[in-house]
């Protein structure tokens, strides 16, 4: 018989309690992985929107925590384009709209100038086309949003209280963008009463593709200074830094971790209870093991390995449930345009390791207590 076999039998001895512990820990891990995973997916997608367009810097008004609240003059694009080191500048207006008749809240509405390179990443489905300069009150709709609204090319959708004709349905690699609507910049400026304004500019820098990361960072820092020197009210922020500062993303991350922390705390208490009870009920048995020659460290190892096995089971189940749950949520109409449906492997690993840490951590005190009782004292207990 192996030591591991002995430990495994101890777990199977109390099947119901072991199962409940695994479930409790699994729920905690599922909460962590799914909430943090969704939040992480949100920021990853947002970042990919910029990365796939080669955006190096985002120019916005200084001090704005949410890019939607403040605008910059659209004409500033020419000034920025003149700055040495700038390869291209693209401005746009962004807002969040809803379609209450279809119970769809929080849809991104973009306003882009006709011919803007920002359209390049949109793949128009057959039967549709891109927006032309004369396409006022006409829109492109992302495929996920089109499905949720049940619209096709030629149909009309309500936008800012007016009817807008769908001229094209597009696919995007990001579900975030596939759940959005695109109108002409001039239309959005009118709808939002922000004449001549954009929310910000996406700037691509003239950095050689084979530049070392340190070189690129240094060149972008210099470019940033030159752009910010144009006007003290603008900030030119690297994409990563910009993503990290976006209010909704920060909020979603904070909410995810706070909620996860609560779930983990509940899971940890459950695990601690299980291990304390498990040791307490077996204290006479532990005394016997010590009496017949088992060292304290072996007793501690036995209890910790039991806890580790329960944690691994809980972590695995939790991760599987989280991935499945996220996938299912991504198909709900209310969330289909916001949740990608995948969970980054690093988030799954984090959740799993947390489960192991909770399991082992929750067993340390009972293991130490049980192993350090004098054998005769342990064997006297009922």
């Amino acid at each position, binding site marked *: 018989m192996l030591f591991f076999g002995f430990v495994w*039998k101890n777990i199977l001895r109390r099947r119901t309690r072991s199962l409940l512990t695994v479930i409790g820990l699994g729920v905690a891990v599922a909460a962590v992985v799914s909430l943090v995973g969704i939040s992480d997916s949100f920021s990853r997608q947002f970042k990919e929107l910029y990365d796939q367009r080669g955006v190096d810097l985002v120019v916005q008004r200084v001090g704005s925590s949410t890019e939607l609240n403040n605008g910059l003059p659209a004409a500033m694009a020419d000034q920025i384009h003149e700055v040495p080191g700038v390869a291209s500048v693209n401005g746009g207006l962004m807002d969040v709209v809803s379609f209450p008749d279809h119970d769809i809240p929080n849809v991104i509405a973009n306003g882009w100038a006709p011919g803007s390179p920002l359209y390049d990443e949109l793949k128009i489905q057959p039967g549709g086309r891109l927006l032309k300069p004369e396409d006022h009150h006409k829109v492109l709709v992302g495929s996920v949003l089109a499905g949720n609204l049940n619209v096709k090319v030629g149909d009309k959708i309500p936008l800012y209280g007016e009817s807008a004709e769908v001229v094209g349905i597009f696919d995007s690699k990001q579900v975030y963008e596939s759940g959005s609507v695109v109108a002409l910049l001039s239309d959005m400026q009118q709808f939002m009463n922000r004449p001549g304004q954009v929310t910000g500019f996406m700037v691509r820098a003239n950095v050689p593709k084979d530049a070392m990361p340190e070189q690129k960072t240094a060149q972008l820092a210099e470019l940033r200074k030159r752009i910010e020197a144009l006007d003290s009210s603008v900030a030119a922020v690297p994409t990563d830094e910009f993503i990290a500062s976006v209010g909704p993303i920060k909020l979603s991350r904070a909410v995810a971790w706070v909620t996860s922390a609560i779930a983990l705390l509940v899971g940890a208490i459950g695990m601690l209870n299980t291990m304390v009870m498990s040791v307490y009920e077996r204290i006479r048995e532990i005394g016997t093991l010590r009496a*017949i020659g*088992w060292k304290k460290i072996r007793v501690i190892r036995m209890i910790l390995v039991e806890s580790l096995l329960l944690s691994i089971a809980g972590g695995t189940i939790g991760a599987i449930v989280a991935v499945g749950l996220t996938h299912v949520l991504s198909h709900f109409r209310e969330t289909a345009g916001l949740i990608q449906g995948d969970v980054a492997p690093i988030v799954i690993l984090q959740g799993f390791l947390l489960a192991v840490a909770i399991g082992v951590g929750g067993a340390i005190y009972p293991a130490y207590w049980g192993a350090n009782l004098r*054998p005769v004292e342990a064997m006297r207990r009922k």
Partner: protein
Amino acid sequence: MSSTLFDSSQSLLRCERVGRTYTDGEVTALVDVSLEIRRGEYVAIMGPSGSGKSTLLNLLGTLDRPTSGEIYFEDKPLSALRDLDNFRSRKIGFVFQSFYLLPTLTAIENVQIPMFEGSLSAPQRVRRAGELLESVGMSHRTKHLPNQLSVGERQRVAIARALANEAPLLLADEPTGNLDSHSGSDVLDLFDQLHDERGMTLIVITHSLEVAERAERIIWIRDGRVAEEPVNTAPVAHHQRVHR
């Protein structure tokens, strides 16, 4: 009597003015106990309930520590030992009144438990456990759980477990206390066998004179003190019975 297997003049265990007081209840279980057990002896410790005999056994077996005095094993003080667990594993086998077998393990698995602290591989542990169970007449019940064994069989398994690491000393606390007379007799026969054939040193706690008479010597405990030891002629009678 086979005394050629060991040097019976060598001291194995020696107590010098050992005492044990429990501070929570301020109970004094043992007072000023001095005795010596020689290698290869078969000793019974007798006394009424509450006399301190189990306390003495626990101290001799390093399951507890004395509050005064010193216990020597092979002339080395136990208080100086750093690793009592290792010492118990190699030097002492225990047999308890309630057997204390692990309920989720089969007989052969229970016998292997003490061997984890040794150097045997898993297959070697299994082989040795099988041999030990055969030596106590349990080779036909190796895969049974404790609750599938009779009380006598459980105690045999416990004895096999006590022999797992070939310890020179066997401590038994009321080994027949929960057994019927037939099973109890079988267990005592096993003890005789261990003593006669392997030269083991046996210390048996009992309140039964019938059990104590199997031993070469009886140590009487009364009110936590060693009482005057009457001469025990019972072992001669036992061997006469064996050789009849």
